[in-house]
């Protein structure tokens, strides 16, 4: 059985996906099935893909500064489509002062530049684990 399916996506207009690809690779090596959807995607494309791919987790990578707007749109769309059980984490050049706001809107974790790989992996594993026990109870 697969360890868990994760979608890695880049919303918005910045075309720098080294970080997104790094995280995709990292998660692959940790045994996850990672769907990467490429650069410059709309929140609608990302949410539709996440639903068709039946992922449990979406990782959004963004370097343009539009995270407050685009992350919220993803969260809202998931709710609209009855898929709010799909969890979202984010990463990129996000100022620390924005992190509490993102978490308040429902982003489960935010990884700012310099986050060690282990921290990403342990958070992802915790998120998937938490959801599993919640689903079982």
């Amino acid at each position: 059985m697969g360890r868990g399916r994760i979608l890695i996506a880049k919303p918005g207009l910045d075309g720098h996906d080294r970080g997104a690809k790094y995280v995709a690779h990292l998660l692959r090596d940790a045994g996850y099935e990672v769907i990467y959807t490429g650069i410059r995607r709309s929140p609608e494309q990302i949410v539709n893909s996440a639903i068709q791919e039946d992922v449990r987790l979406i990782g959004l990578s963004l370097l343009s500064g539009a995270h407050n707007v685009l992350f919220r749109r993803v969260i809202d769309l998931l709710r609209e489509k009855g898929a709010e059980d799909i969890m979202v984490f984010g990463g990129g050049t996000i100022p620390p002062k924005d992190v509490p706001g993102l978490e308040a809107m429902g982003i489960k974790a935010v990884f700012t530049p310099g986050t060690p790989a282990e921290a990403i992996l342990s958070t992802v594993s915790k998120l998937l684990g938490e959801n599993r026990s919640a689903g079982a109870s």
Partner: protein
Amino acid sequence: MRELVEEVRAGSVRAASRLITLLEDNPSSVPELLLHSRDWPQVDLIVGITGAPGVGKSSLVDRLVAEWRAFRPDWRLAVVAVDPSSVFTGGAVLGDRIRMMAHANDPQVFIRSLANRGHLGGLTLGIRGAIRVLGLLGCRVVLLETVGVGQSEVEVSTVSDITVVVLAPGHGDSIQMIKAGILETGDIFAINKADREGSERLTAELQATLKFTTPRVHGLPPQVLKVSAARSTGVAALRVAIEERAAKLSALRAETRSGAEQQELREFLLESSRRRVESILERPGVLEDLLKRLAKSDADLAAITSELLTRAGTGTDTD
């Protein structure tokens, strides 16, 4: 599972994608699903798209989807794209979808990436179940993209109604053409990147080879078409060729598909038998003991095999 099935029947994409996950995680439930879903709406046309890594399968699938959407606007379509799992970690990066994002917001197009999870053959164990679910969701055409294949992953031709082998210039000389393997499975050969140097020669070599090949399917010789997914040329002709060929073969479809079901059952039975025997061999000391008996000429391999099959057959010895 029954609830999910009803939701899929009512058109829920979410339920369909969940059901596919369930089948993927429990491939042993697929044969049963196949038996109990004979009265479900079925996919009209299953098109296998196969070829070596990097020849442009995903891009061509993307263009074919656009083509079908334009010519059959009321049809729902699906793409199932398989990529390899890591043999070492079980993880995978599934990237076929990147080429198909133009269809992400089209409610009539369902795209799903699957990892092969160690299954050799170019597809994945739950694939026939996934196709059945897509039929229930109302998909008329399923494009089935294999992993980038080498020479012997021919499974796609047992699942598909029409198999398209995608080739591109720069992937080997004429000797590659006469080897057994995927070249024997093609109903249609799409020479992609037809704008590139070497495509004329590849086309000529392929046609020369196919002249001496016995048609796989009931006397219909394979076709060779030049396409360019990047420039969207030849794609309309490819769709037409697929549909025309499918129409000619429609009388045979029931036969092909029931053959596919038998094949599925066969694989499942072989796999579950193998697992039973394996669970005996995995017990501590069993192999050691067998080796000792062999060394003492206490028993030969044939006798030990029969013994194992008996033990596995009674089920008392298995988990």
